């Protein structure tokens, strides 16, 4: 009973928030609606018993991703209305047909593969976080490490792309070049 009430409430809230995100012409409204939708999605994870995933959803999306987006939006002009695309009708029709076929496949999938069986069954007597740790650090250790390397690469890429004068390397430059660069910087500061 309570599960059904919570499901329908959060389904309604999530759908309306994401609908606002894709239809509004204000970038700030879209950002705040997206953040609210992310929080509401974590409620589904808590209902489904995936507590750790829900906590990660709140921390990563509402914490890290939203902070990144709001920092990014400081660079852009967000007060101006967002222009909409007047797209090609044939392309939109084709993509909608593709999406409809995709929906049919999504619904047919669980019905067709009724003989599905659990590869890593839920362990009795352990909390969700312990279960996640047991599976993640035994069967999925290599993908976990690869994901860590990928996050490191993404971090370095973000710093290099968004930072100033990141294309210069002090270790590869001569002493004179560094001296010249510093003098130029001082001139700019003084003038």
């Amino acid at each position: 009973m309570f599960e059904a009430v919570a499901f329908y409430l959060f389904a309604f809230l999530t759908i309306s928030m994401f609908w606002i995100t894709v239809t509004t012409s204000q970038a700030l409204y879209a950002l705040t609606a997206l953040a609210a939708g992310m929080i509401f999605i974590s409620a589904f994870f808590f209902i489904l018993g995936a507590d750790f995933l829900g906590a990660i959803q709140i921390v990563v999306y509402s914490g890290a991703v939203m902070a990144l987006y709001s920092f990014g939006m400081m660079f852009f002009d967000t007060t101006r209305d967002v222009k909409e695309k007047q797209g090609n009708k044939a392309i939109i029709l084709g993509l909608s047909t593709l999406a409809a076929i995709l929906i049919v496949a999504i619904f047919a999938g669980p019905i067709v593969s009724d003989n599905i069986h659990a590869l890593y069954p839920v362990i009795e007597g352990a909390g969700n976080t312990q279960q996640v740790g047991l599976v993640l650090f035994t069967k999925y250790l290599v993908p976990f490490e690869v994901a860590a390397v990928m996050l490191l690469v993404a971090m370095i890429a973000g710093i290099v792309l968004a930072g100033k004068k990141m294309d210069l390397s002090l270790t590869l430059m001569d002493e004179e070049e560094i001296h010249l660069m510093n003098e130029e910087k001082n001139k700019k500061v003084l003038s």
Partner: protein
Amino acid sequence: MMEIGLNHYLVLTTILFAIGLVGVMRRKNLLMLFFATEILLNSVNISFAAISHFYGDLTGQMFAFFVIAIAASEVAVGLGLLIVWHKKHNNIDLDTMTSMRG
């Protein structure tokens, strides 16, 4: 109606995925396009967690973790590139990014 099953969650994720697709199709601003891709990734995450719950299997949750990691790195690199493009051209409209047309 009151018993929430797997199909309820699949219908919800389908609706969310359709909303994300609508966003991808009608947005011109690249930042708004990024928001729409976040919606797509999140709807897939819900369906992974739901299938993991109803089949008693933890693999779905593992995949959801990796999807979250990929989404985070996508945002970092994509926003960096977007800032570089905005510094150079002073707009982030998709229609102006046709310089690589064959």
